């Protein structure tokens, strides 16, 4: 299932990360900002993969924990906390909330689970809209970061990169150990998983917690960078949707899938919709529809098939894909 990576694979990955580390030294600020957004989506997608991809529970919760982390950083930084400390507290708090919510929610299956997580995200937003501590619908200001745009663009970029690398490493090690096998068994057949001795409740909760801590961290970075938060902004269900879509595009349940999906699509899409800024969301919609129809198992799977059958069979593979799940 998940074979440990070879030295070459690690080397290539290391080169990739190295390139991302060097990139800001010779790039414009707006390029760096774009990559920061890509990394943020990659974090959300990788996190969603824990619960949605590996465990098979379609969650809309990333937006909930992203917003939660953002608000915790905002509130704590206003109280004078160190930024990095707020990230740690935010993700720990996100993890605890995920644990408490997960115990009842993860008893639900299928669409009921999806709706419950959607309800959680919306409930969080409504609370942020009404509580005094979050500034209500008026939003909340954060302390401005000190330093010029060159400095803070890089500061936020490297913070995001750090979270992304952490999320990736955790996912890699989870999938290469018992935990990952257990999660996949639950996705494939939950009753049979219990019968092979897997504590399904515990495993599902672990997956849900893992899928919540990293979005909370990313939310914290986002908050400090934005310097101003509104509930509708950070509890946007589109964060969850993007996480799901990018993972699906790349390949559900694979470690590289969420990364490939986010990098490729966000980057390509960026070119596409700089031409049609007004129709940004429509283009994303079209990409979603086409990829669901033609790449239901994601790009990683497509690459594998192409390697086996050759590029010439691309048309046949796509035709086959759209026939696969029809009535």
């Amino acid at each position, binding site marked *: 299932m998940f074979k440990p990576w070879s030295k070459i694979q690690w080397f290539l990955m290391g080169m990739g990360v190295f390139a991302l580390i060097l990139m800001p030294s010779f790039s414009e600020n707006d390029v760096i900002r774009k990559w920061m957004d890509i990394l943020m989506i990659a974090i959300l997608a990788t996190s969603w993969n824990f619960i949605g991809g590996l465990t098979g529970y379609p969650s809309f919760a990333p937006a909930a924990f992203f917003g939660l982390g953002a608000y915790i950083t905002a509130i704590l930084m206003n109280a004078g906390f160190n930024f990095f400390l707020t990230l740690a507290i935010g993700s720990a708090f996100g993890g605890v909330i995920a644990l408490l919510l997960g115990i009842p929610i993860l008893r639900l299956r299928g669409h009921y689970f999806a*709706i419950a997580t959607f309800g959680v995200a919306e*409930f969080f937003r409504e609370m942020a809209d009404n509580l005094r501590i979050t500034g209500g619908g008026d939003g909340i200001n954060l302390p401005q970061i000190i330093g010029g745009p060159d400095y803070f663009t890089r500061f936020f970029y490297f913070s995001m990169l750090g979270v992304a690398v952490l999320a990736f490493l955790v996912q890699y090690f989870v999938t290469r150990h018992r935990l990952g096998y257990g999660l996949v068994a639950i996705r494939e057949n939950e009753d049979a998983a219990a019968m092979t001795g897997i504590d399904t409740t515990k495993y599902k909760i672990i997956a849900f917690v893992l899928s919540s801590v990293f979005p909370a961290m990313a939310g914290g970075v986002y908050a400090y960078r934005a310097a101003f938060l509104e509930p509708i902004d950070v509890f946007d269900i589109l964060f969850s949707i993007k996480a799901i879509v990018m993972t699906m595009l790349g390949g559900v349940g694979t470690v590289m899938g969420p990364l490939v999906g986010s990098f490729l699509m966000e980057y390509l899409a960026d070119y596409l919709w700089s031409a049609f800024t*007004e129709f940004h*969301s429509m283009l994303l919609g079209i990409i*979603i529809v086409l990829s*669901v129809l033609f790449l239901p198992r994601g790009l990683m799977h497509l690459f594998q098939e192409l390697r086996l059958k050759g590029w010439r069979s691309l048309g046949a593979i796509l035709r086959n894909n759209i026939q696969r799940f029809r009535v």
Partner: protein
Amino acid sequence: MIYIQILINSILLGGIYACIAVGFSLVWGVMNILNILHGTFLMLGGYITFWLFKLYGVDPFLSLPISAIVMFAAGYAIQRGLINKIVRAPMFMSLILTFGLQMIVVRLAIYFFTGDFRTVQPSYASFSISFYGLIIPFIRVAIFSLGVILTGLLFWFMAKTRTGRAIRATRMDLDSAQLMGVNIGNIYAITYGLGAAVAATAGSLVSVGFAISPVSDLEFLSKAFIICTIGGLGNISGALAGGLILGLVENFGALYLGPGLQNAVGYVVLILVLFIRPTGLLGRKGFE
């Protein structure tokens, strides 16, 4: 007195809610599709009524059948041409597909209709009956009654017609329905078309009493989520019960906690119901 007034408001609102949710429940129950486009169909129905009224002066209640027919055709085409292709894929694929379609349609709606809030204002919009200090707006009563009639019609259709029976057979057992000669692709498309038609009609009704915009659709959708989960999916009486409960909860929530928390209360009830009875209050076991 205020309690009775709120009770009346809740019931009137609940009837509309039921009507909003019933098509969503149908599509979910029969095909196990969480139809993100549902709110969009409502929104489009509302706009059909709005434009017919604004451009040609068509009375909003007369445009209901037009909404229904147009959106039935659209729904049928969407299911036949797109969703049927992935019906057997893991269930969140259909969810994502309808989400993608929603993004396209909503963006186009913003382009053509602008993002302004619209409401249909016929001459009789402000009529109301009042007695003993209670106010009962005529329009709300009309919407409520039509909503209930519409729900009843759907109930009758499912129970009595040949197609309705084929839909129920398909829902219970896909494979044996197929063996009995039911054309599944067609039945699915009809079901989806029906869901869209009922949604559009509900949207037409809503546009008379409430303001709509292209982005109202997610609000409608989240109401449908909550109502179906409270009532249990796939049965029409569940949608009615869920609609009434949500109407009551929201209005009394607004009274006690302030209008800002009205929606939050709805989500709390949603999550509570899921905890206590994962299949909804009137739901049956065995559907995911």
